[in-house]
């Protein structure tokens, strides 16, 4: 299909699926962008394409700054905010010839698992259950996921703090990749929890995700947490050592984390998981049960750390310099109390309060510090099971022989413990309800976030599971050691879109 045809089809789908609310802002139907697609088309016929994404329409999650489209973060606080600069990832995509086709809906500031906490209304998925009830699109990058699933764009960028790219990918049957922390620049990505925030890529297949990753996987001096060229080459050198380089040709050791086999796991997900493992074994890989004992604590640690950073990062939205400002304060009042009261939605307020509490002098030691310790333990768990060492860890470059021989190469596990829930299950009378149970969806995605590891969710379809004739779709997650992103993508490619 020509680039122009593909672009036109995406634009048409944006119209058809407008009710899904995947986009907050889209481009005009015609505009300078169209010419850019035509130019790319010409380059393609001449064999001079700028990149694999030259002329492709890419949707950008609305918490990533764009100069010529608003950046709202789905928040009242910023609902007319236009950033004065482009995020590095946007620059990189445009330089590679890609066209930003619009800004996608999300949970306000990325806080949520179902893309319902949006000032612009919830994102709707095309998927319905047996009773024709709407299912959750997942969150917080639900808009990007739905835009990809319904071909309103070629691919999309999301952000993944605790699973926000992987979970919607699993719920919408798309591919969602969260690379290692520090590989993709965060300059221009509105911070929710900086130490966890990662730009993620969503596509209909692994290869389109891979293309975009190739464009974005670059050092950026403007992001202090972006890995330098020096560190990147150190990581590559480590992966080229004979023990690890051999993985390209020989069978892999695939780890199955036993702690992920929880009682809450739904039958369809369990079936997709076990059939995926069986498939991989048929491909010649070996399967190894491994233990990640801190997994149970990871979710609670995440919900202490992420809100703590959020309460800090969101302190800036006071309406003084940009964003909405409600100026009904009487003299002597805090001039921004109303601004923040009206600007933030309920879930954001909840997390700000949680975070402010866990950082307060009396609670800090028991919550924030403890959670940081657990984060270390989670990292340690992963380091213990992987064959490759964590290349950034000081003094651990030489791994003990035991793990080098017995360590696994990637972990395969479900992305979420259950299929997407009904939207009605957490949408009360026009208000969105939330409770700790809603946080459960992140239980399998959070550990890789805490450790900064590359993780991808790919859609796997299973036929007639558990003696029923039902067809089920589930997200299967592949997690690799830090910096081992290429291997994760390679394994994902083998499982991608399989009907098992």
């Amino acid at each position, binding site marked *: 299909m020509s680039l122009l045809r593909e672009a036109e089809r995406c634009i048409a789908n944006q119209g058809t699926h407008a009710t899904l609310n995947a986009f907050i802002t889209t481009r005009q139907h015609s505009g300078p962008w169209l010419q850019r697609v035509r130019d790319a088309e010409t380059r393609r016929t001449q064999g001079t394409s700028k990149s694999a994404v030259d002329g492709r329409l890419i949707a950008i999650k609305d918490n*990533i*700054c764009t100069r010529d489209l608003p*950046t709202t*973060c789905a928040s009242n606080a*910023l609902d007319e*905010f236009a*950033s*004065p*600069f482009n*995020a590095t990832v946007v620059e990189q995509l445009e330089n590679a010839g890609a066209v930003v086709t619009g800004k996608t809906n999300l949970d306000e500031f990325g806080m949520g698992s179902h893309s319902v906490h949006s000032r612009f209304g919830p994102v709707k998925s095309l998927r319905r259950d047996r009773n024709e009830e709407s299912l959750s699109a997942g969150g917080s990058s639900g808009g990007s996921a739905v835009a990809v699933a319904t071909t309103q764009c070629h691919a999309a960028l999301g952000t993944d703090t605790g699973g926000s790219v992987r979970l919607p990918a699993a719920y919408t049957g798309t591919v969602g990749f969260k690379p290692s922390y520090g590989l993709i620049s*965060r*300059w*221009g*990505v*509105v*911070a929710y*929890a*900086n*130490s966890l925030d990662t730009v993620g890529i969503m596509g209909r297949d692994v290869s389109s995700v891979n293309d975009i990753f190739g464009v974005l996987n670059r050092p950026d*001096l*403007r*992001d*202090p*947490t972006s890995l330098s060229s020096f560190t990147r080459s150190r990581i590559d050198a480590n992966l080229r050592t004979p023990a690890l380089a051999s993985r390209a040709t020989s069978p892999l050791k695939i780890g199955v984390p036993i702690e992920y086999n929880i009682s809450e796991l739904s039958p369809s997900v369990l079936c997709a998981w076990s059939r995926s493992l069986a498939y991989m074994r048929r491909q010649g890989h070996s399967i190894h049960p491994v233990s990640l004992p801190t997994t149970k604590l990871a979710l609670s640690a995440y919900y202490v750390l992420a809100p*703590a*950073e959020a*309460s*800090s990062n*969101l*302190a*800036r939205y*006071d309406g*003084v*310099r*940009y964003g909405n400002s409600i100026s009904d304060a009487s*003299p002597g009042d*805090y*001039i*921004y109390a109303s601004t923040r009261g009206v600007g933030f939605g309920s879930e954001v307020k909840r997390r700000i309060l949680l975070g*402010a509490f866990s*950082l*307060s*002098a009396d609670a*800090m030691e028991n919550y*924030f510090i403890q959670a940081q310790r657990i984060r270390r333990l989670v990292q340690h768990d992963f380091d213990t099971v992987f064959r490759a060492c964590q290349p950034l860890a000081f003094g651990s470059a030489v791994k003990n022989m035991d793990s080098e021989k017995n360590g696994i190469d990637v972990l395969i596990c479900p992305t979420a413990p259950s299929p997407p829930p009904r939207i009605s299950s957490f949408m009360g009378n026009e208000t969105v309800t939330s409770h700790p149970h809603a946080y459960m969806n992140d239980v399998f995605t959070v550990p890789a976030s805490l450790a900064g590891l590359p993780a991808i969710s790919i859609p796997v379809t299973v036929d007639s599971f558990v003696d029923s004739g039902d067809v089920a779709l589930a997200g299967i997650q592949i997690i690799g050691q830090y910096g081992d992103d290429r291997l994760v993508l390679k394994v994902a490619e083998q499982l991608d879109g399989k009907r098992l």
Partner: protein
Amino acid sequence: MLRPWFRQCPRATRSLACPQCRPSPRPQEAMRALNALPSSSLSPPIRSLQTSAPESQDHIPLRKQLKQDAKAVKARKRQTRENEQTSRDKWELTVGIEIHAQLNTESKLFSRAPTSSTDLPNTNVALFDLAYPGAQPEFQIATLLPALRAAIALNCDVQPVSKFDRKHYFYHDQPAGYQITQYYAEPFARNGYVDLFTHDGIAPEDGDTIRIGIKQVQMEQDTAKSQEYPPSMHVLDFNRVSHPLVEIITMPDIHSPATAAACVRKIQAILQSCNAVTTGMELGGLRADVNVSIRQRGDATGTHHYGGVGGLGQRTEIKNLSSFKSVEDAIIAEKNRQIAVLESGGVVEGETRGWTIGTTETRRLRGKEGEVDYRYMPDPDLPPLYIGEDLVSELRSTMPTSPDALLKLLAGSEYKLPIEDAKPLVELDDGARLEYYQDVVDLLRELQQDQDPQAQKGLARVAGNWVLHELGGLLTKADLAWDVQRVPAQTLAALLDQLQRKRITGPTARQVLAMVFEGDSRAIPQLLEEEKLILQPLSREEYIALAEAAIELNPQMVEQIRQKNQLGKLGWFVGQMMRMGEKGRVEAQKADGILRELILEGRS
């Protein structure tokens, strides 16, 4: 509760003590109020004032009144001193200081925006400085250099690893809702000290020298400038936001208000001498917070500890002091307040207090329950700061001489300056005066090479006097800032050379200096020639004639000198002779000699 108030309120006592400047009925009321108090609670100064009050009602000659007033002032001062002594004997004051100083850097701490404060408001700001969504910090390594110089000058151990934290509080001059600082985790420098000497102005009870420990030095961001236009407008200038600061935290080693002020003054001088900061307190480049507590002497049972020092009383913090005097005054006021609270059976609350220049009391800003919980958190965007020992030793080896070392040098055998002259030379005009002085001394020594070695030894002292007092006096009189070109060092050296060679008198030299100061640009020899200022010494006869003329006009003073041996009055005659003689020709020393001959040797 009135008692502590009266005791601390000099304004109330002033209105009582200064009879001519108050309306008559008021003090009567005040008196009644005082008399209504139990007599035991009347503190002595008020009692003594009470006796002077009725006198003021009578008409008394002005001179007598002035004398009485002066006496009263003296008495009050003595009384205050005695009171201070009494309370000092009983109560021990403990003070720790936190100093915030703007670093001398080209760029802000986390952006490349320039730090210039004179530009139009809101022109020197980067996205990060305004906390724009998606903007990230970019630590400017060069800002570390002045910070390290400060730490080295304060004798600190520079830490190989330090970290940045966020300190949260909401205020519209704080764009991100937090300040990036190093307080909570690891500051970049620790365990320093500053030595204070008598000439630094420390309290007499601290002896000749006292060492104040520096707990830590940390880097942090400044806030925006905020101006309030009541009732409801604030104007913000973000040029200052994120200007790099160092916060210097002393140990609670200070036990007197004067020493606290001296400590701040000294730290400012040290920071300026190593070029770590741009401006001092007078221009807002330096601010201080003080922590004040008291305890009874010999009582180490206090439960509070700070910086590893235990057994202290409850402290209060006085924020944002912007002059040396306010540091001293605020501590005095707070100490007195705490003593009054404790002596009346009360308890000192841990709280934050404020001080306004011109007031006599600190005022409560917020109590413990209103204390901001800063919710310190490591900044997730900023990696730790690794400082190499090579950088530190390189900086250490290129540090300028410290003010203390300079003072020692100037007061030593090479220059022999009195310490009270050496100090201003070092401190004035950011070291420019000292540089000028050094030039004058070098040039003068060269010119005087042929002179006798004994005379040469005094040259530095002579030059000091002229640079500081004569030239300084002219500057003060004309209300002008220091300008090295006004009287070039060569010119002053040439002038002093002539003076040393006795080719001109002191008064002539002064006159010539004033001419040059006013813009006369002729070379000194030419100027002296053309103005006929070169000394033509008077003969002995001429001196005798002048002296006799002066004596003749004032015979009764001669008698006083002769009979009562009032030798001081000889000087007056010297002055008369200089006035009567030809301008610039009468040399004081010779005139004095002749006068002694005529007046003293003639008696018996």
